[in-house]
């Protein structure tokens, strides 16, 4: 052994490698420390704002607001592509929201199934010639349908152009100054809009976007489009995604919104000022990740034009969505997210990052997102290779690696626990003790396999991006009650 080492030391390029690996080791350590500091900073902000938020929605009489004339009218935009199974139930539930004045605009994005027929038959819609603004260019609109029996419901039938294009067509028809985007496979809670409107009304001029909280509906009982009984997902993948969502939304977005650095308003449910969305040119078509893209553009537009603004998050406004429950569909979703994220960073992020002009967004949010989200797979993989090399070159011993691993794991696990703490103190949607145990269990289980494979999916998404593979991937819809 000594002899081999001796010979190795003789080799000059190996020395160089060692130097390099040592340098990389320092870099990686700073990287991990930086990301941990940011995590804890954001998480601290989340915790810090939980109590005020809780007070906010406890002492507000949401019931009274839901009929009040002081609440701004909202246009709900529901893009639908091949949604024949869920569209009927979804629209019915949207028509019965507790909100004083709103309209529901369903956009059929050239579906290949019977979405169009289902809608026209169910609501007895007739073609109307409506005045539509041409604020944003979209694919050809085949017709606008309406039934005076359902005065708040509009149905746009257009040629396929993607989700962003469908949203733009909805914006063109919308009659109200606020728009809200809702996925056709999601269910809004009846007072979700009112809760978002409450946040909006705190500062109507500056609030350009408010995001809602997305929760996972798998295994819950749904009746008439209303979630009747909340049950923790029974299958493995939805359960893992559930704790992941709780961590991301409660542990992350509350904190980011506190420093006005929120980079994404979930496409499943968010409210925007229509005027600002039109000012930035509407949704970008042709690529996934349009929900992050619009928020980045809003930040950029407001910062460049020195418009005071905020992007808020409203954790008590809940939208229930179906999480993919098979490996294939989940991987395709995550690859799409990875691809969309990279596209957004290339298109917008790199131009704004580390420029003081863009304030918190440019100095904290974007560096965090680029370094620790977008580039995360590369650091992880190179880190794994480096550890392998350290071990082979005898630069470390297993104890050090284990200690590093444990510290890293513990710090991440504490964050998960913190998110659960926020969930339990402020929202408590899963009040049963057995559900809490399950959440703890799955928070732990996330570290074994799930997170690693998530990194892999993101990397594969990047590969798709570089190979110019621009498809939406598979998403299979099922009825809400299985």
């Amino acid at each position, binding site marked *: 052994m000594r002899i081999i080492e001796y010979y190795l030391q003789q080799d000059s390029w190996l020395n160089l490698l060692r130097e390099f690996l040592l340098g990389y080791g320092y870099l990686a350590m700073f990287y991990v420390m930086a990301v941990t500091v940011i995590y804890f900073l954001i998480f601290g902000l989340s915790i810090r704002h939980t109590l005020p938020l809780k007070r906010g929605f406890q002492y507000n009489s949401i019931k*009274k607001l839901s*009929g009040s004339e002081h609440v701004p009218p909202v246009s709900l935009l529901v893009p639908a592509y091949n949604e024949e199974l869920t569209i009927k139930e979804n629209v019915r539930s949207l*028509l*019965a929201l507790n909100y*004083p004045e709103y309209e529901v605009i369903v956009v059929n994005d050239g579906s290949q199934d019977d979405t169009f027929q289902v809608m026209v038959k169910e609501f007895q819609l007739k073609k109307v010639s409506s005045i539509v603004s041409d604020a944003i260019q979209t694919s050809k609109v085949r017709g606008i349908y309406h039934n005076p*029996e*359902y005065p708040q419901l509009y149905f746009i039938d257009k040629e396929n152009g993607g989700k962003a294009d469908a949203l733009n067509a909805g914006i063109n028809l919308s009659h109200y100054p606020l728009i809200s985007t809702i996925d056709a496979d999601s269910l809004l809670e009846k007072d979700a809009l009112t809760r978002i409107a409450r946040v909006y009304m705190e500062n109507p001029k500056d609030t350009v976007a408010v995001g809602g909280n997305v929760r996972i509906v798998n295994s819950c009982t749904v009746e*008439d*489009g*209303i979630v009747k009984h909340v049950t923790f997902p029974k299958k493995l993948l939805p359960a893992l995604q559930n704790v992941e969502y709780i961590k991301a939304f409660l542990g992350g977005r509350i904190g980011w919104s506190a420093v006005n650095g929120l980079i994404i308003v979930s496409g499943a449910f968010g409210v925007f000022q229509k005027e600002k969305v039109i000012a930035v040119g509407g949704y970008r078509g042709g690529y996934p990740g349009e929900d992050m893209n619009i928020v980045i553009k809003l930040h950029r537009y407001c910062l460049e034009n020195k418009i005071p603004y905020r992007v808020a998050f409203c954790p008590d406004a809940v939208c229930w969505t179906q999480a993919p429950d098979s490996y294939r569909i989940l991987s395709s979703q995550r690859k799409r997210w990875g691809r969309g994220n990279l596209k957004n960073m290339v298109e917008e992020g790199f131009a704004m990052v580390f420029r003081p002009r863009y304030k918190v967004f440019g100095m904290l949010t974007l560096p965090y997102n680029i370094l620790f989200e977008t580039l995360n797979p590369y650091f992880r993989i190179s880190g794994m290779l480096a550890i392998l090399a350290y071990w082979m070159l005898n630069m470390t011993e297993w104890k050090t690696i284990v200690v590093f691993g444990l510290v890293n794991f513990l710090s991440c696990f504490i964050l998960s626990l913190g998110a659960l703490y926020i969930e339990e103190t402020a929202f408590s949607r899963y009040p049963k003790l057995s559900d809490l145990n399950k959440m703890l269990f799955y928070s732990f289980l996330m570290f074994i396999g799930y997170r690693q494979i998530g990194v892999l999916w993101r990397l594969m998404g990047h590969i798709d991006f570089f190979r110019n593979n621009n498809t939406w991937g598979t998403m299979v819809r099922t009825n809400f009650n299985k």
Partner: protein
Amino acid sequence: MAVFMRDQVVDLNQDLFNFVSFKCVNGLACGVILARCANLNQKVLDSLKNYMSKHQPELSAQYVYDDHNQVLSILLDNWKLSATHYTSLILKDFLQDHHFLEGSIVIASFPESGEPSSFNLSQLVGCVTHPKKESKEIRIFTDQSTGEEIQSILVVDTDEVVREFVRLRLELQGYAVSEAKDGHEALEKYSLMSPDLIITELNLPILDGYQLMNQINKRDSKSGKVIVLTDKHLSSHMNRAFELGAADYITKPFSISELTWRIKKLNA
């Protein structure tokens, strides 16, 4: 023309209901004359029958005397209200001449005088057996169920708590209350029970409150009354509800005394 003797008022109600609804289902009018008379017997009934057919040869009628309640009822085949009224004048002559008449005579013809429901018919019988004033005159029966007293109420709301609260409080006031959780169920219950009053939220799944009112208006020209009890405070909602024929509009949070007071006001 058979002549029956009965001694139970329940049977009288039942017989009336069977006969009248049978005629009405077949699309024929059915005249009813009820008169309070004492001490009628088979012989008098026979002579009455002869007297009547002498004056109105085309008359086809059934004569029933309820001994217990002392009510003479005459059921007239395919007789409109005007014809029934004329017949009752002849009857009154006969009864007064022989001093049989004890109280008032009440006439009706279904479906002109209202739905031939068992409720309406028992109201009709009640007019004779328990008259509000003692006088020997002919009175024309008017439909009680849509006109005056509210007896049955349908509460439509998605919120279980609201439904139960309203139901319990209204039941204490003596109303018969049923519940529906959405517009569709409400419509089903409406056609099944035809309640006198519907208290509805506007914001309902499947069919909303407006559509519910619209459907009710379409089904029934005499339309059951509707009180809207809703979270919606906007004047546009209120306007639309009143345009669709709502009798009253109450916004949540509401006081139950206000609600009962408004129901009573509808009664007046």
